[in-house]
């Protein structure tokens, strides 16, 4: 089942190379193919066993690929992987359905999107470290072509910077993976074995070096300060749907990777350095919020809020790893971090799609060139306000559920750090309110009179994301149950 989740979009992408259709047909076909993984994942979710004695990883598949090196096609999900993969699939469908400017190359555009969907889901669904790296790298290739070909402004440069920067990170991960795996005997890349064996326990220096490799690699991807500088240009020059996927899905690979690999496989070492990570998290939270506030460019502003939000996720992970913390609090922090990943994916995905709508209408991201749009574009106003409020953590919306749990958990472990981090929420609130005021209220500039409201497809796409944001905010239980089954396992170890 999980294998099909990856293979269907992958084969779809391949089949697109041989098809000759008109542009809307490509889009709807891509939508159909891209929804298949979502349906499969929903089916997996429905069949996922969350009872107390259930195995951590379910729907496991295991075929040998290079047995001599211990590499295999291994798939399986726990609660965390399941919800993040499902969120990613939702976002991919939304991004594909979004009416994008394909510049006469619809076939390739949608083929790359399906390819990216396949490999991104692969990152979350695999249980083999080598395969994880394969998918992790391929996601860079996919996004590189999407940004470079269909981006705007200095897209080529931004694409190359993005690829080189994040590739450096993934090579750091590769070295760390090798350093970790070589401690097993016989050699294996099987995540389940690595989690059970904790191969580097008791090897101080080597474990630390391997941890540094993972933290640097995933840190670039997440990204946290000071490894975030590739993010703003990549976002600003990317087409809207690619941006949505970049923020919503690819950034999650960093934090998901931290939980799946160093947190689980090097738990002793990871716990020892949890405080350092928590400090990094707080710096990211504040830095992201402050720098975001200073941006006049709409897309840059939202890009920096990603740095801020991923800081919350990191804070939750660090709090969960800390030795001596109460288990309930640590579990809550980790659950919160996972919910934040889902919430951020949906919210920021929606916001970047909205940015795409702005670009398609005016080709301008400068906030000061806008004003009073609520008069001409009421639907756009509604969705932007909803997403912004969700992003700043308004109760009743998805962001609140996540941040509440992270902070409750973090307060019991690092009260001072959590208190400082709360400032970040305050600044975020200010920057979103200021942005909304600038865009939608006040006087409508003369050259924005003809600004068109959202089209039907755009409304439909955003409505699905908005609905999920609201449902998670009001009734999060269905989401928390599978996550809790995984976090209980992950925080029980020590």
């Amino acid at each position, binding site marked *: 089942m999980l294998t099909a989740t990856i293979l269907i979009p992958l084969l779809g992408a391949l089949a697109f*190379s041989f098809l000759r259709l008109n542009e809307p047909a490509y889009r709807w076909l891509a939508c159909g193919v891209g929804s298949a993984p979502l349906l499969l994942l929903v089916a997996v979710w429905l069949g996922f066993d969350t009872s107390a004695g259930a195995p951590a990883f379910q729907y496991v598949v295991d075929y*040998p*690929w*290079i*047995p*001599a*090196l211990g590499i295999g096609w291994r798939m399986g999900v726990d609660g965390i992987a399941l919800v993040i993969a499902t969120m990613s699939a939702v976002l991919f469908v939304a991004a594909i359905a979004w009416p994008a400017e394909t510049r006469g190359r619809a076939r390739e555009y949608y083929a790359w999107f399906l390819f990216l969907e396949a490999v991104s889901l692969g990152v979350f669904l695999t249980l083999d470290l*080598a395969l994880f*790296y*394969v998918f992790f*790298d*391929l996601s860079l*290739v996919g996004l*590189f*072509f999407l940004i*470079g*070909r269909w981006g705007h402004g200095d*897209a*080529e440069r931004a*694409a*190359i910077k993005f*690829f*080189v920067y994040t*590739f*450096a990170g993934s*090579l*750091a991960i*590769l*070295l760390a993976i*090798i*350093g970790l795996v*070589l401690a097993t005997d016989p050699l294996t890349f099987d995540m389940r074995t690595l989690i059970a064996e904790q191969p580097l326990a008791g090897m101080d220096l080597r474990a630390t070096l391997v941890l540094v490799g993972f933290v640097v690699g995933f840190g670039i991807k997440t990204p946290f300060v000071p490894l975030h500088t590739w993010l703003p240009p990549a976002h600003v020059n990317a087409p809207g749907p690619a941006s949505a996927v970049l923020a919503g899905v690819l950034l999650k690979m960093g934090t998901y990777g931290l939980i799946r690999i160093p947190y689980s496989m090097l738990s002793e070492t990871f716990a020892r350095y949890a405080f350092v990570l928590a400090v990094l998290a707080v710096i990211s939270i504040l830095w992201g919020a402050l720098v975001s506030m200073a941006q006049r460019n709409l897309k840059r502003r939202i890009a920096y809020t990603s740095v801020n939000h991923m800081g919350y996720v990191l804070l939750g992970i660090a709090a969960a790893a800390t030795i001596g913390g109460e288990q309930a609090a640590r579990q809550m922090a980790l659950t919160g971090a996972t919910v934040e990943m889902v919430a951020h994916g949906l919210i920021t995905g929606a916001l970047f799609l909205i940015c795409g709508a702005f670009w398609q209408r005016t080709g301008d991201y400068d906030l000061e060139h806008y004003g009073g749009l609520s008069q001409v574009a009421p639907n756009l106003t509604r969705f932007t306000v909803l997403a912004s409020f969700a992003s700043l953590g308004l109760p009743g919306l998805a962001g609140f559920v996540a941040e509440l749990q992270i902070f409750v958990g973090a307060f019991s472990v690092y009260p001072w750090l959590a208190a400082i981090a709360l400032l970040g929420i305050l600044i975020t609130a200010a920057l979103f309110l200021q942005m909304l005021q600038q865009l939608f209220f006040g006087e409508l500039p003369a050259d924005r009179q003809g600004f068109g409201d959202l089209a039907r497809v755009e409304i439909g796409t955003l409505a699905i994301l908005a609905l999920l944001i609201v449902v998670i905010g009001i009734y999060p239980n269905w989401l928390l149950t599978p996550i809790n089954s995984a976090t209980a396992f992950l925080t029980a170890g020590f």
Partner: protein
Amino acid sequence: MPVGDVLPELSVLVSAVVLLLAASFMRERDQWLAAPGALIGLTVAAAFCLAQLGEAPRITFSGVWALDGASIWARLIILATAALSVLLTPEWLRTDRRHGEYYAIFLLATLGAMLLAGAADLMQLIMAVLLSSVTGYTLAAYHRNWPLSVEAGMKYFLVGALANTLLVLGVTLMFGLFATTDYGELATRTNDSPQWMTHVAFSLVVVGVAFKLAAVPAHTWMPDVAEGAPPPAAAFLTIAPKVGAAIALARFVDLFPQEDIAWRAVVATIAVATMTIGNLSALGQNDVRRMLGWSSVSQSGYALMAVAVLGLDPYALPALLFFLASYAVANLAAFGVVTQLRGRTNLTDYRGLATAHPLLAAALILSFLSLVGIPPLAGFVGKLALFVTTIESGYAWLAVVALVNTVVSLVYYLHVLAPVYFAEPARPMHTLGYWAAVSVFLCASFTLALGGLADPLWRMLSQATLLP
């Protein structure tokens, strides 16, 4: 004499002679028939090589010829490289009056590279290096009316003449010190000679072999040859001698115990210098063929990583062989695309290739991504094996250096891929023909297959041995 042990070499040699004679009598428009002829010779040689795989590793032919896994696999890679380059040739040389002779020289160059891989005696090593060099100069300068080609041949020759002299000098010293050129005897020799003399002789031989490998300090010919030689010849010259030389170097350095000569440090240093210089020089290139030449230098550096840790880890030798094979297919694909595009080399001429020729662009993308080591392509498995074996052997720092270099290399590969994919074509782009297209298609498929289906090859390579 066990003639049966050199049947692959004999078939290449015989084909070369036959083709040379035939070419002198064939009409000009029939000369292309030499290409299928060469392919037949290479196939027969490969069949003989495959038959040798099952036999026990041994030193044969009066102790000068090693018949072990390393030499057999290296020769198979060389033969495959040669065959795929032959496919690129007939359309390229269609209008050349000396078309037929080309294949004779080409096959002799193949023979030289094969001899390098099997040499188990210093005299044999000299012979192999010289045969491979002399034919190489000719191939590089084959367009004798085109200044760049002549320049390439000339530079190749000048660097080669110096390096070959140093090699001969080194071998002379070795013989003076140990009274033997036989590898087996060198490995078990008694050590009563002055230490510094051994060092000098050792260094001279290493430089001589490094020349064939395009490794520092004798690497300078590579970019010129890649730029100026006919692209089918450049494809061959950037790969085949390198494969042979890598095995020759491994076989030679392995003779000396670490206490006598710290050769691991020497090889590791050469590896670092080679990959770094190659990558940094490739960075600013706007000429695709020249860039490929420098990238080829840097790839030699990666291959040397495995030589540096030889014997410390059982995976070192299979990693070296697998990496060489993956490099060969990817590099052949790149040069194949250049050939198929009629040798266009200016970066701006590649703008919009993806629109004009999507399949060629795809082959180029696959090739470059494999050279970088992006999974699941051949280059990824090759590099993964290299990293695993260097780290396992305690040379993690070397893997880190290679990793930084890999990131740098991504920049110049993307520098080419970006206009290929992101720009629109300005003029129609003409291609060469079906032979070259077949070669490109095969190489691109191998690049994919060696990654996705790496297991069978890896398993067979793991059985390979290296005799002294």
